[in-house]
């Protein structure tokens, strides 16, 4: 899939903690059709990074610093992050 095809978006996704270590990058770029949902993006991420499959129910997705549901539509202007279970304090 080429990123310069009209209608495609390059989505940047930030990774944290164990997810960042599993992928070896703190930010990845996924090329997807325009106006896709969070669920669709996550399935593309798991295709590209199969090492995350065992964590698929152990992270949530934030869009612009808000945890979202899978049917949320995203664009390349949004800030997306995958967040594993938190343990601060």
């Amino acid at each position, binding site marked *: 899939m080429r990123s310069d095809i009209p209608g495609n978006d390059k989505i940047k996704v930030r990774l944290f903690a164990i997810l960042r270590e599993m992928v070896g990058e703190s930010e990845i770029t996924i090329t997807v059709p325009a106006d896709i949902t969070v669920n669709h993006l996550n399935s593309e991420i798991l295709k590209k990074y199969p090492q995350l499959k065992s964590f698929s129910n152990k992270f949530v997705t934030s869009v612009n610093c808000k945890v979202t549901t899978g049917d949320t539509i995203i664009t390349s202007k949004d800030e997306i992050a995958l967040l594993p*279970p*938190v*343990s601060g*304090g």
Partner: protein
Amino acid sequence: MISITNNRLSLQEIMFELEDNSAGALSIFIGNVRNQGRSGNVSEIYYEAYSEMAEEKMREIENEAQTKWGIKKLVAIHRIGNLKVGETSIIIGVSSEHRHEAFEACKYIINNVKTRVPIWKKEISEESQKWASGILLE
């Protein structure tokens, strides 16, 4: 004052921030790295944060505490990076007119920071490194 920082935390600076002549009570919670974790001995902890979102969530929690208890001033600072045993990872400080509000707000804030703010810790020992199990954000 809400902050995520790489710097060592200073209780003196936090006390200064909390000064308020109309506050008769000041409650402070200090969280330190201890030498035992869920996976055994710990020599240090690595803390990582999604800082922009973490500060936003901490402000949200601050506003809730403000609404519930009408506190005067609040400081919540979380340190990130590698911290050795005995070092301070978090300080929550609340000043209010009376002690009840200060105690309750301080407890509410630390409990919510631990469950609602995107910060992660990895327990490190000579034998192993392990991310602490935690709570999925909602």
